């Protein structure tokens, strides 16, 4: 399409259900009570000139351009700050208004550079537009007087420039930073003529700015402008698509000039983000065209051989023949595949179909194994569906928000902005996290309770919450009686003294009084919502904790309406989708067990192949079996298991032991060092399909450019299947979605056409819910009755010892994304050039460590080195790092411990020691301590 300019109604929509009718320039218009005159006029098709108003921000009334006349009222009120009243008669164009507006514009223009023809915003400048709209023909004041034209440009931010000489002090950027993003990094500094926008008196790069882009989007002039627009010019066409980073799944307008992507602009009608963005989605897309991209297939006989570029035909034929050789020699079950949460639903679906129908086994797993598999298990057991309960909008109705093991401002920043908005409105916040995350205390947000628990004690804490609820008479008995089962047994268990806050205090380190107060707050809030992340799931009791949270929500009646629920914040853009698509070895698409004869029969009928009724191998099982010699061939779709999975030595030993490793990815990565076939993949800008975000929202991913590799990933998989003797003759990804819909009841109403019509769809979408389901379990749970499951606390077997006296926990930061394959290839590297170890000053002091020192981090399975950052965010005894850089190899030290139910790794609890290093070490040194890794590294070719 041509460039998509969304209408701007000037002020936000009113949510009132009462209507009023007004007359604007003689045209009657009916709008909700509370609507501004400006918005009412825009609704009737009359655009009142404006500069400081935009419909993503509350009205401000500073520019004095939107003045109107209202019958019976004196003066010329600002239409943006004046609400409509029933029967009101408004005039937007009169000689008096014309003169006033021209006077205002004259003043603006007298202090504005007259470089429109060479300005980067030429053609997309509201000041330019308004000059035309008000009919400005002269500036009587001249340009010789005092002005701001010589103010220095700030180019410090890698993605946008700040040119204060073009600023009209409308405050849209300042308000966007506060209202939309919630960071409050910008302010109007000075008074009167000296007033100017400032990032706290610093450069943008040195300020608190998080580069979300909200200010750039709000700016009506070229004051805040994307560098890409400055360099390339204004885009001329738009493609609506979906971000490929976190599980928020923001909708974006990809704006192009010819075939060149100029910028990504958040889409106002995007259901997940409603016009907001973060630094990754907004700006960090340069990796898609990075010169490191591999664009041709490559093969090699042995991993010590150099790569050899080959044709697609040869790569696919080679892969198929070696897969069949392995199966001939070692059995049908000796090969398998891993799907990726960075790929579309359609791409994932064909990989699991390849495994089940062409490989003939159920050895398919997905990277959700190492993040949210406990969510799938826990919510299925208790609620009956492996998905979160709410849409993101729901947080606006929450009275108490409990954040457990998540760091939304870094991991899910666009949702965090929604959450912070609600907190500024007065909702209470409880944070349960060993680390003092930003949400605990940030501008205009402060947690009522921060329960700084000992890592590995989540279940003890959630049980103590429930103990308080049950023993203090805070149970929603009507909800429990009508909606749930198993309550009596569970209540008897949870009421036992061992679950009381007083008893668990010595285990969790959280004062009993704090737990009691937080539990009472949650139970009596009205609407209480739980949001959680990998700090819940990546534990030996990850699944138990998910069930514990579900128990708590059911006991207090906090399920099935707006503002409540149990909500996983998914790490990657398509974690939910990849799980939905049957990526787990025990489940077909739609979370239906492979042992279900009726379900299998339906798939077998369409696929024309029999499906094994027994589960296949999970990823960790594949590694164990590879080392044992029984699993010898692996197809890895878009996941760098050698960097992201725990106990690197074990993973690389497994990869080294295999006869064939096939990697489908954008870049050569750590895993590809052990690969025999490299099939180049496509970036999200090239993909055609759908992603499903953490709120079950299915969004279209539309191709912005043709595949740089010459072939879509789904087609590669289909061709591989064909080479293995199994046809998957799709001609377009819409046909894949049609098959998914035909076979999966929760997707029955989903199609590309429906998505184009509705914008997005939250599953379940079927005849009962033709436009989707924003909130689940409204009248009954998916499984019928919600099931209470007793959740005994069992301490992790990972304990501190004299040799390893500290606990390591891991996470990610705002500017980087998972293993960093994408974000390290963008200017985001400016914010995070290396992974660092956060350590409490006391723990550092006793080890003689100063801020910035190089330290060795060692566990019982390995050692690495990185730089120490002293921080009291961490409690004494706990250290923290990220895993965005392969050179650090954070997972060299994480262990084989995992969630008992799903084998999700226990990333969040590793006993370690930290010691000062005299000199920095390289990655090879860092892995010396691992016996298992040594032979693997000897055989690997370091590209």
């Amino acid at each position, binding site marked *: 399409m041509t460039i998509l300019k969304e209408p701007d109604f000037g002020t936000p929509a009113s949510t009132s259900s009462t209507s009023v009718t007004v007359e604007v320039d003689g045209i009657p218009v009916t709008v909700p009570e509370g609507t501004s005159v400006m918005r009412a006029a825009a609704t009737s098709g009359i655009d009142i000139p404006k500069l400081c108003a935009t419909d993503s921000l509350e009205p401000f009334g500073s520019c004095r351009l939107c003045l109107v006349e209202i019958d019976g009222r004196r003066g010329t009120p600002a239409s943006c700050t004046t609400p409509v009243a029933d029967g009101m008669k408004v005039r937007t164009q009169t000689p008096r208004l014309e003169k006033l507006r021209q006077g205002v514009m004259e003043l603006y223009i007298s202090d504005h550079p007259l470089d429109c023809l060479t300005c980067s915003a030429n053609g997309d400048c509201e000041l330019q537009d308004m000059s035309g709209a008000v009919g400005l023909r002269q500036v009587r004041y001249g340009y010789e007087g005092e002005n701001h034209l010589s103010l220095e440009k700030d180019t410090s931010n890698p993605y946008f420039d700040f040119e204060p000489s073009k600023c009209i002090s409308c405050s849209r950027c300042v308000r966007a930073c506060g209202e939309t993003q919630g960071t409050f990094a910008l302010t109007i500094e000075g008074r009167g003529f000296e007033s100017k926008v400032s990032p706290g008196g610093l450069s943008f790069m040195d300020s608190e700015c998080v580069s979300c882009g909200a200010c750039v989007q709000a700016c009506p002039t070229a004051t805040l402008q994307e560098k890409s627009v400055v360099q390339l010019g204004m885009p001329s066409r738009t493609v609506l698509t979906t971000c490929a980073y976190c599980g928020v799944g923001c909708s974006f307008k990809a704006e192009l000039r010819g075939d060149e992507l100029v910028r990504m602009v958040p889409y106002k009608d995007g259901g997940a983000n409603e016009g907001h963005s973060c630094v990754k989605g907004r700006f960090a897309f340069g990796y898609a065209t990075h010169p490191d991209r591999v664009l041709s297939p490559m093969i090699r006989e042995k991993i010590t051989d150099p790569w050899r570029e080959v044709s697609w035909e040869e790569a696919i034929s080679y892969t198929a023949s070696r897969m069949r050789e392995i199966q001939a020699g070692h059995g049908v079950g000796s090969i398998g595949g891993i799907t990726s949460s960075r790929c579309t639903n359609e791409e994932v679906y064909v990989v699991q179909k390849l495994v089940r129908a062409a490989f003939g086994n159920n050895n398919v797993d997905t990277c959700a194994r190492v993040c949210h598999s406990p969510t799938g298990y826990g919510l299925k057991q208790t609620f009956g569906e492996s998905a979160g309960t709410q849409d993101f909008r729901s947080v606006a109705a929450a009275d108490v928000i409990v954040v457990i093991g998540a760091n939304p401002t870094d991991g899910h920043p666009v949702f965090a902005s929604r959450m912070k908005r609600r907190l500024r409105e007065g909702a209470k916040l409880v944070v349960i996290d060993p680390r003092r995350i930003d949400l605990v205390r940030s501008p205009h947000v402060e947690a009522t309770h921060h329960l700084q628990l000992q890592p590995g004690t989540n279940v003890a804490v959630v049980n103590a919450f429930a103990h308080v609820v049950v023993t203090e008479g805070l149970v929603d008995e009507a909800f429990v009686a009508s909606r749930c089962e198993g309550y009596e047994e569970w209540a008897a268990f949870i009421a036992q003294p061992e679950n009381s806050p007083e008893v668990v205090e010595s285990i969790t380190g959280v004062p009993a009084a704090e737990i009691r107060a937080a539990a009472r707050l949650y139970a009596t809030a009205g609407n209480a919502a739980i949001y959680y992340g990998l700090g819940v799931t990546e534990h030996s009791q990850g699944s138990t904790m998910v069930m514990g949270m579900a128990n708590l929500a059911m006991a207090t009646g906090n399920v099935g309406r707006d503002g409540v629920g149990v909500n996983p914040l998914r790490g990657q853009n398509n974690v939910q989708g990849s799980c939905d698509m049957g990526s787990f070895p025990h489940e077909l698409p739609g979370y239906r067990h492979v*042992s279900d004869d009726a379900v299998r029969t339906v798939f077998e009928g369409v696929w024309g192949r029999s499906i094994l009724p027994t589960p296949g191998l999970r990823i960790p099982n594949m590694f164990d079996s590879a080392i044992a010699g029984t699993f010898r061939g692996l197809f890895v779709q878009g996941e760098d298991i050698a960097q992201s999975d725990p106990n690197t030595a074990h993973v690389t030993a497994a990869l080294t032991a295999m006869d064939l490793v096939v990697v489908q990815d954008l870049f050569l990565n750590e895993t590809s060092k052990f690969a025999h076939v490299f099939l180049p993949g496509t970036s999200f800008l090239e993909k055609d399909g759908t992603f499903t975000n953490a709120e079950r929202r299915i969004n279209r991913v539309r191709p912005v450019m043709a595949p740089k590799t010459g072939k879509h990933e789904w087609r590669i998989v289909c061709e591989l299947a064909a080479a293995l003797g199994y046809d998957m003759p799709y001609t377009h990804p819409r046909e894949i979605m049609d098959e998914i819909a035909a076979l999966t009841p929760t997707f029955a109403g989903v199609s590309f056409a429906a998505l184009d019509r509705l914008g997005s769809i939250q599953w379940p979408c079927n005849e009962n819910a033709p436009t989707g389901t924003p909130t689940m379990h409204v009248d009954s749970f998916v499984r019928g009755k919600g099931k209470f499951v007793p959740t005994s606390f*069992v301490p992790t*077997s990972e304990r501190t010892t004299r040799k390893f006296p500290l606990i390591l926990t891991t996470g990610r930061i705002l500017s980087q994304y998972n293993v960093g394959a994408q974000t390290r290839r963008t200017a985001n590297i400016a914010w995070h050039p290396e992974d660092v170890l956060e350590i409490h000053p006391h723990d550092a002091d006793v080890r003689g460590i100063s801020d910035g020192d190089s330290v060795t981090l060692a566990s019982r399975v390995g050692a690495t080195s990185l730089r120490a950052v002293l921080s009291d965010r961490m409690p004494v005894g706990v250290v923290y790092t990220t895993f965005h850089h392969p050179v650090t190899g954070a997972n060299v030290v994480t262990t084989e411990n995992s969630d008992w139910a799903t084998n999700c790794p226990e990333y969040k609890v590793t006993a370690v020691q930290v010691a000062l290093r005299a000199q920095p070490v390289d990655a090879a040194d860092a892995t010396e301590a691992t016996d298992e890794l040594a032979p693997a590294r000897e055989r690997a070719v370091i590209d």
Partner: protein
Amino acid sequence: MSATTPPTVRLANEIARQFHHQPPDTAAAAIANHIERFWDPRMRTDLQHHATTAPESLDPVALAAAKLVGS
């Protein structure tokens, strides 16, 4: 548990720890059910092999579960 513990034994023992609060028979049945729903049959066979050849390596409840698991 040592690094040389067979994976299926380690995993079964980890599951068993979660069911220690239940009566042994109930726990064994629940563990067996879990293993049947989520483990590849080869892993079940391997567990049963260890249950026969090295029963001392298994938690008693895991051992009881291994005997209930269909391969």
